[in-house]
């Protein structure tokens, strides 16, 4: 299976692990990630304003690129996923906006939200299948107590993201279980770490992140996994005393492709 892949700015820089292991693991699962040519940064956050067009064009270019190749578009960073998925939804549902965008991008032909956007986790669940994944695990993570941290971007707004139940998601827990580990369910897994607020008021980010870590630990977590570089940054920076790793790294480890990456 070949899919279009949008890595995003951080994955080529501070979050190289997220990217690298995504590639390696996909390969091990028989999925080829075809990186979009000349992709541009999604902008990090989606603006909900009706009258913002320019800030959404980079996402639409990526979407259209995948659409032209008749491939689903796979994202791995939560923020990219949120921005691209919300932009695509707006293209599907807001004809005025779509019209404006298509005029803007006159040279590239029209696009009306036809591309299917999957987060890497959704790809594992819906395109690969957790059962298949389970079969491919070589290093079972049995006995590890792992807490999934969703953050806000993967799940909300639910009317658009449609990834899982926004209040009681299971996709990452099912992922953890597929790898053989124990999933720690805790209430704060879908609460915000503070996100970009750490430039505006670091204390706020600290308070939020701390509460998340404490809640995960109180429920027995020995490790936290996430899909978002910013979440990871906030959690680590604000005193996580248990490891916080990208879910792709855990995946690569379980699939036995982590070592040769490092080698």
């Amino acid at each position, binding site marked *: 299976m070949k899919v279009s892949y949008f890595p995003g700015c951080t994955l080529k820089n501070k979050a190289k692990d997220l990217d690298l292991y995504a590639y390696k693991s996909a390969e091990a699962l028989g999925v080829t990630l075809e990186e979009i040519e000349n992709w541009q940064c999604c902008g990090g956050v989606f603006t909900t304003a009706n009258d913002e067009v320019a800030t959404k064009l980079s996402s639409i270019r990526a979407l259209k690129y995948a659409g032209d190749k008749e491939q689903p578009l796979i994202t791995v960073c939560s923020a990219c996923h949120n921005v691209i998925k919300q932009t695509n939804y707006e293209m599907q549902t807001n004809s005025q906006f779509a019209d404006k965008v298509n005029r803007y991008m006159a040279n590239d032909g029209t696009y009306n939200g036809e591309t299917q956007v999957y987060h890497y986790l959704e790809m594992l669940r819906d395109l690969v299948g957790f059962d298949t994944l389970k079969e491919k695990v070589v290093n079972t993570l049995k006995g590890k107590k792992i807490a999934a941290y969703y953050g806000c971007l993967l799940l909300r707004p*639910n009317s658009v993201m449609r990834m899982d139940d926004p209040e009681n998601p299971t996709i990452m827990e099912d992922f953890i279980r597929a790898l053989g580990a124990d999933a720690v369910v805790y209430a704060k897994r879908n609460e915000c770490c503070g996100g970009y607020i750490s*430039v505006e008021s670091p204390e706020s980010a600290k308070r939020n992140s701390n509460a998340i870590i404490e809640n995960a630990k109180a429920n027995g977590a020995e490790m936290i996994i996430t899909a978002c570089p910013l979440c990871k940054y906030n959690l680590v920076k604000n005193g996580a005393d248990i490891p916080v790793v990208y879910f792709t790294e855990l995946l690569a480890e379980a699939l036995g492709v982590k070592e040769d990456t490092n080698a």
Partner: protein
Amino acid sequence: MHNNKYLQEEIIRISGVNPSKCMRCGKCSATCPAYDEMEYHPHQFVNMVESGDIEPLLNSESLYKCLSCFACIDRCPRGVQPAKVVEAVRLTAIRKKGANRMTADAVPAMVDEDTPQQLLVSAFRKYTK
């Protein structure tokens, strides 16, 4: 209280939110992770826009405290979408000339060696125009 009809309509247009759908349950403010940072809270944004009392919001630091985590949007029983109102008010404020919240000069002081690009991009998109 001043009723600024023009700004009110502008914010309703940008956000696409109908503030009169609010039934004053306060679940948005109950759910908000940035509540304590804010002078005006999510439900107040909605209610003040509904009554046209916009200026205090425009001048409030609260604009920059919203995390865009969309929890208020998902948990609002009436589908009001308070975060969209906050965003619309903030844009109304920073779209004015010279009203950018962040400048490029300030960046070096903010970063440490682990700062992800995503953080800076997001902050720029949120705080500047």
